């Protein structure tokens, strides 16, 4: 089976400092119906990789090398890094959708949530009037919000509900790939568990490939099929979840796993260990 998304040798640098490798030679695949988790500390290049897939990199950054091959169900295999803006706009929201980290800031406060969910439906599928309303209502119910809330403004919803609205927006056009950039970091544990379950159910039902960015290994253990560990712009380890979590090969993965507190309190707390860097250098 060809992978849904094939990222190979992706390198991102600032335009003014082409020698500073923010993302350095990153390659991994996303398969249909599978969740790939990208794990790493702040500044490891997780979010930049996701933004590059969407073609949303800041103007100050550039893709130096590498390709992002996407198996579009309609247009065949496309290299997202080479597409022009018009073609990217056809893919964004329709084929590849993204959920952002902060549900508090990523919704427009002066538009109703129903309108915001409907935007991509109108743009990509040309839905209007009653059909649009019905589709919005069914999407809201799918993510567990009463359809009557379509006329609410974002400030009338709780953090968990706003993140559900973001999810409804992203799955509106039934994308092939869903990118979630730390979708639960800003939420409470109980709400986090609900959102993770919802994402898992939707992924299975729609056979989406999911790229899930997080720094929480507990979340990884719950939802991942494959894991990619990033450190300072490079992939240090990748593989199936069981292999990476139970039998980590790279010292950084081991150090990162060791400093995650466990719920039983059996494991002693350990600060992260960078001593392996000395050996590598």
């Amino acid at each position, binding site marked *: 089976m060809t992978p849904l998304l094939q990222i190979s040798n992706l390198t991102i640098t600032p335009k003014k400092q082409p020698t500073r490798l923010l993302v350095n030679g990153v390659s991994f695949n996303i398969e249909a119906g599978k969740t790939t988790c990208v794990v790493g*500390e*702040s500044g490891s290049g997780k979010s930049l990789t996701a933004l590059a897939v969407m073609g949303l990199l800041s103007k100050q950054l550039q893709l130096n090398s590498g390709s992002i091959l996407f198996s579009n169900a309609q247009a065949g295999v496309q290299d997202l890094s080479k597409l022009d803006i018009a073609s990217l706009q056809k893919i964004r929201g329709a084929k590849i959708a993204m959920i952002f980290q902060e549900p508090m800031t990523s919704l427009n406060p002066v538009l109703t949530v129903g309108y915001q969910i409907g935007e991509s439906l109108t743009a990509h599928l040309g839905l209007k009037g009653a059909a649009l309303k019905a589709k919005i209502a069914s999407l809201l119910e799918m993510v567990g919000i009463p359809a009557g809330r379509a006329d609410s403004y974002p400030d009338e919803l709780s*953090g968990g509900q706003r993140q559900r609205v973001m999810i409804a927006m992203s799955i509106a056009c039934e994308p092939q790939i869903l990118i979630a950039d730390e979708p639960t970091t800003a939420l*409470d*544990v*109980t*709400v*986090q*568990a609900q959102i*993770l379950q919802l994402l898992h159910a939707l992924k299975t039902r729609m056979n989406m490939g999911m790229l899930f960015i997080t*720094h*929480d*290994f*507990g*979340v*990884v*253990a*719950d939802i991942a099929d494959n894991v990619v560990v990033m450190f300072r712009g490079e992939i240090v380890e990748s593989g199936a979840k069981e292999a990476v*979590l139970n039998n980590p090969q790279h010292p950084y993965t081991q*150090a*990162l796993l060791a*400093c*995650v*507190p*466990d*719920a*039983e*309190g059996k494991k002693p*707390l*350990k*600060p*992260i260990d960078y001593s392996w860097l000395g050996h590598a250098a």
Partner: protein
Amino acid sequence: MSELILEANHLVKTYTQRSGRFGFNTTLVKALDDVSVGLSAGKTLAVVGESGSGKSTLARCLLQLHPFDSGEVIFQGQQLDQLNGQALRQMRQYLQMVFQDPFASLNPRMRVGEIVGEGLLIHGLGSSSEQQKKVVAMLKRVGLTEADMQKYPHEFSGGQRQRVGIARALVLQPKVVVCDEPVSALDVSIQAQILLLLKELQAEMALSYLFISHDLRVVRHIADDVAVMFQGRIVEQGSVADIYDNPREEYTRKLLSAIPGKATQH
């Protein structure tokens, strides 16, 4: 059971919230509904619960940063809510707080040396050279250097800023420190370092912590006792081992089962 250093009895705090069209009506929100907690000397009491459950309101009421409607707070045998301005200010030396967001809780226009030394200045502890020495010693203790005194907060990473926040709270030799989600804004890799630092300092300086958190994995490692809050009430209170191994309340069980990664760890 050891002696209680800080005790709250039957605290009630209500907020009025504007509601209805144009906010013409008001509704009362009970942020604290008959809350009683006791913090043992030298121990850590964790307060857990979802956002909006009243954890932070409780912390603020304990430190008299918010007035409350009824109830009492007793610190070392003195009723804090009866103290007037001057006496309360003197007492605050022994009641310090470490805040959640290390990016928002340090004044960007003050040097780290000034931030950490401000409490000493306000309470007039020692001459300026003694204060200087204390600041340097405290910064070194939390893992920063003397040279860092001249720097501004923006020159530090999140973990380092939280160290500055801890130094600021501890330089006054407090007895009780309220930590309001001190690690939730930090990377997992930095969390453990800060938690270990807090534990070491507790042993060295005989501190009692009131530790507010919604991360039950963190609480398991740092707390001696746990109080579970839900909608302004304490639904369950007990030792860490009891709460985690035999949760009696439905809500506690729900919180515990929501810990990510739990299903696969067994």
